[in-house]
């Protein structure tokens, strides 16, 4: 496994090329390209805000201010969602390139995670704008735990790479993986503390939610912007599950590679 990763590291220049290619394709088609990256989470945040804070009158589902809480949850979710969809198709979509270049095949997965990750980074100025707005308004304050934000980013990257390495070969070998992934993602959105906080769930459900690695990761993302205490259990479980997924994904990817190359 380490040998494979040193091969990938040796080809990081190519990884850069691939990511740049992805971003260029994404932003070459329309000048609206960048706007789309931020319109989507903003629109979703607005909808959930209207539904929960205005109609159900429960803005206390999350931390205050609820709109900021929503955005901090939705931006990483967008990365998660887009990356899973993209990595599941990573090998199928680039079948021609996979067939014609002898690169470590993991690159196709990692490049999708990074490309979507960069879009996530590009959407952060929006978050920054709202943070400044709410801080000036006096609704929230920043604290030192903001240093956990990059930690969350790294963990999410590890998690996404692991899941991607599991899904990409599965899609090659079974066509209907994509459909299943879509359904699971839609359910997972509600099974992730994005529009609510962990402690709003009943105790038994909280324990279940700990085993969603995103629960811990989102706690880390939010820690710097809200004064609330962060829970340790979901954090530890989330971190170990992320690493676990990466190890599992890497091993399974290596095992499936032979069959995948024949089918692609």
């Amino acid at each position, binding site marked *: 496994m380490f040998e494979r990763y040193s091969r990938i590291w040796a080809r990081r220049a*190519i990884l850069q090329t*691939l990511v740049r290619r992805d971003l260029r394709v994404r932003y070459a088609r329309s000048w609206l390209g960048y706007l789309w990256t931020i319109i989507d989470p903003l629109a979703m945040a607005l909808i959930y805000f209207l539904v929960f804070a205005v109609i159900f009158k429960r803005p206390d589902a999350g931390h205050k201010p609820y709109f900021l809480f929503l955005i901090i949850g939705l931006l990483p979710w967008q990365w998660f969602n887009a990356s899973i969809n993209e990595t599941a198709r990573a090998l199928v979509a680039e079948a021609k390139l996979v067939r014609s270049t002898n690169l470590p095949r993991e690159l196709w997965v990692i490049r999708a995670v990074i490309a979507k990750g960069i879009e996530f980074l590009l959407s952060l100025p929006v978050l920054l704008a709202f943070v400044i707005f709410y801080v000036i308004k006096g609704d929230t304050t920043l604290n030192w735990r903001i240093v956990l934000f990059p930690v969350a980013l790294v963990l999410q990257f590890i998690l996404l790479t692991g899941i991607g390495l599991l899904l990409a070969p599965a899609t090659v070998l079974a066509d*209907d993986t994509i459909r299943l992934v879509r359904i699971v993602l839609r359910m997972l959105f509600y099974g992730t503390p994005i529009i609510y906080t962990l402690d709003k769930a009943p105790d038994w459900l909280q324990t279940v939610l700990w085993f969603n690695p995103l629960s811990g990761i989102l706690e880390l993302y939010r820690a710097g912007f809200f004064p609330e205490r962060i829970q340790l259990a979901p954090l530890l479980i989330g971190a170990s599950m992320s690493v676990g997924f990466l190890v599992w994904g890497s091993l399974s990817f290596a095992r499936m590679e*032979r069959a995948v190359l024949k089918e692609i």
Partner: protein
Amino acid sequence: MGSLAGHEAGTPSARDVITADGLGIEFYRSRRRKLSLREMALRRENTAPKETFWALKDVSFSVGPGEAVGLVGSNGGGKSTLLKMIAGVLLPDEGSVKVQGGVAPLIELTGGFLGELSARENVLLTAGLHGLDKHEISERFDDIVDFAGPQVRQGLDMPFRHFSSGMQVRLGFALITTLDEPIVLVDEVLAVGDRAFREKCYQRMEDLLSQGRTLFLVSHSEADLRRFCTRGLYLQSGRLVADGPMEDVLEQYNASSA
């Protein structure tokens, strides 16, 4: 092995750039290897027949630097499969193939190109994918475009999908053959392009050979094989049945397929 066995085979030396040892790969006969998730869940009750066949079996040979090897055999003999295994885009189920140095695969020429991007961007990106750094790319960019021809140069900033398929292949050929890799694999691509371009391709291939590159050529054209190759490998239903001078191998192939 036929009467021609013995040439190089079985006497691998440290200088060899390609060494295949007992190479084998197994494919499913039916196209429907794919399981649906339902089938996976139901204890892998694959409804498709499980019959398999070996596209290559027990293939051993070694190729020294600067050799020009032609692969012959009828359709389905395993020629392209062998080429892909040397290129490292298929992995063996049995045995091994060792390759010293990099490979320039003229297999799927336009594989790396994206329709939405301009030809210029495509060249830059694909050359990067094949391992050239920025400096090398800018050094060779003009060569590549010149070789592909004036029409390609005119359309450099056009989306690549507006190119005719001939122009696309030209650009692909130009790009791959400027790579420095010591081994060049060619799969039938010489059949593309108009006559003038084909002549240019031939010239380029001869240049590569004279620079001491190792060439592996798959072709159904005896003229091409005779022109470029000194040594022939004959694959029949996945087995290596002859390995010797090109002329002799062609003779044996013609005799057995007649």
